[in-house]
């Protein structure tokens, strides 16, 4: 269970204190499929990164299984991210000089997994096959369509089999068909029991989620469960 407890994040911009997140209280249960919506600059990405252990809040806590993740040291938090969270970004953020397969293997390299190398390799290949990239293992990101790049990024996020996927506008740079494909993948992952939290501006794409959280001016304006 992931919990934001009175979470606030302020930035000092040219002497002005700007509140990106203000007193957010939120509980995400295992297996939830959550869409975070809101206007640009409302604090959606800040919330996602704070929940993913990437940005220390100014006030409040992020709790993972009742443990304060910002109470851990950086190494412990990095290890937790590596094992528990898979990030998907709007602009994919693939490493341009590595092939599709190598990009998916990066999390294993970071985790320093030397054993079971054939297992990790097979897992990476299996993920790419499941995402329809079986003929793209040796291609570089620049040789792929944007949809294929995002699917590669999703495969990379899933490499270590994390329980939770945090996606920051994963369909923002995709055409409608590719966006639909990505949402189908997320639905499938949700059905497999993973927790999915994704940011979107598109009401249609938000409708895939079982819970919709709307952020406005750093505060939760709406938090509703949707029966599907």
């Amino acid at each position, binding site marked *: 269970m992931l919990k934001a407890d009175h979470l606030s994040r302020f930035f000092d911009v040219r002497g002005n204190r700007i509140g990106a997140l203000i007193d957010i209280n939120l509980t995400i249960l295992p297996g939830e499929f959550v869409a975070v919506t809101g206007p640009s600059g409302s604090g959606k*990405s*800040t919330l996602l*990164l704070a929940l*993913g252990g*990437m*940005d220390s809040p100014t006030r409040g806590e992020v709790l993972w299984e009742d443990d304060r993740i910002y109470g851990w040291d*950086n*190494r412990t938090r*990095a*290890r937790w*991210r*590596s*094992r528990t969270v898979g*990030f998907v*970004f*709007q*602009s994919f*953020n693939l*490493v*341009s*000089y*590595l092939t599709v*397969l*190598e990009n998916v*293997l*990066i*999390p*294993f*390299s*970071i*985790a320093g*997994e030397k054993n079971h*190398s054939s297992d*990790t*390799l097979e897992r*990476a290949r299996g993920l790419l096959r499941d995402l329809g990239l079986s003929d793209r*293992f*040796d291609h570089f990101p620049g040789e792929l369509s944007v949809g294929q790049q995002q699917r590669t990024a999703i495969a*990379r996020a899933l490499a*270590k089999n994390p329980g939770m996927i945090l996606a*920051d506008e994963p369909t923002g740079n995709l055409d409608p068909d590719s966006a639909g494909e990505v949402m189908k993948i997320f639905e499938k992952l949700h059905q497999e029991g993973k927790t999915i939290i994704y940011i979107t501006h598109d009401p249609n794409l938000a409708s895939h989620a079982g819970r919709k959280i709307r952020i406005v001016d750093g505060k939760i304006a709406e938090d509703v469960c949707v029966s599907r």
Partner: protein
Amino acid sequence: MREQEPMKLISLVFREMSRKKGRLISSLTAVSLGIAVIVGIVNITHYSEKAVAGELDALGANILILPKSASVADYYSADFQESTIPESYVGLLTNSDMKGLDNLSPKLSMPVTIQGVRATLTGILPRSEFKSKAMWQGALNVFSRPEGCGTPVEIPGMAPKRNFARKRVIEDLGLASALVGSESAARNNLKEGDSLVLDNGATFSVEAILPATGTVDDERIFAHLRTVQTLAKKDSALNVIEIVGCCNAIAGGLIQKINKLLPDAKVVTISQIVQTQLHTNNLMKNLSLILLIIILVAGGASIANHLFADASERRREIGILAALGADSVWITRMFLLKGATIGTLGGMIGFLLGSVLAMALGPAIAGVRAMPMPLLAVAAIVMSAAVSTVSALIPAVSAAKVDPFSIIREE
């Protein structure tokens, strides 16, 4: 599809480096040239030091142990009158724990006449005598050079035949054999294989005519020490023990130690030889050291500059890696590994370049033929990798401090 190993950190580093070939080549060139210059200088210095040491050694011993009443002038004129030192001194020296005594050459000289003309017959113990005289070895084509100061080295193009040398020198110079100095041979019209008959009746077979050395040795006739001791009726007696002492050991108090060991003998250094050796060695070492420091600082700065630019350009990638679970230690390691890789490759290329440089320029610059030195390869690679890794430390720590959140928020 090619068969592939799971990504290791080093693979990641190699892939990243190969992406920017221009910058890689630029850094490698800087490191390689630096190492090449160091290797070239050290290589040429090494061989020229040895060549100088060899030439100075050829002038003869640099330490003399004489009877208390004898002088250096007596040594050069082989006119020791009746003063001698016991042969047991040789045993005392060889059994002592003194370091820097490279060769001991005990001698006994006596005046003789050949068809009425005065000459000096000097008794030698062949093995030590041959080992301490470079020019003699050249004459017999058995040694490349004497064992002088420092580690003996092989001079390229002159293959040593040590086993043959020992056998021939120790076992073949018989009690009735003689080596004749060039002047003496010319005066008496002697050549190899001739018989030499002294006026006192002693007869020797001429084993070899020694080339001119420009020293008193040119006037002498050398025979086995035992033979000369018998002719002189001085069993177990010597006039002098010549020593080729390591110049560094002499500077470090070797003479005082010998004086303490042999209080009844006179110990003399031929200071010009020692000073010249020390001066030459120090000059070359100091020059190398100054260049080494300059090149290391310049090479290290080049690597650091490369990696700082790298860390700055790769901020986004570092942020993504952090999001995927990379901690500061992992990111630091990635940059240090890159520095070490450039250093290792630069060290290898630099060694090859430097060795070629030394071989090409050695004869022109220092008049010596240089050859690649395997130990120098290890030193060059280790030093280059170490300097590069240390230079990468600050950029690596700086890269590890990149805030992934700020990078990702820039999207």
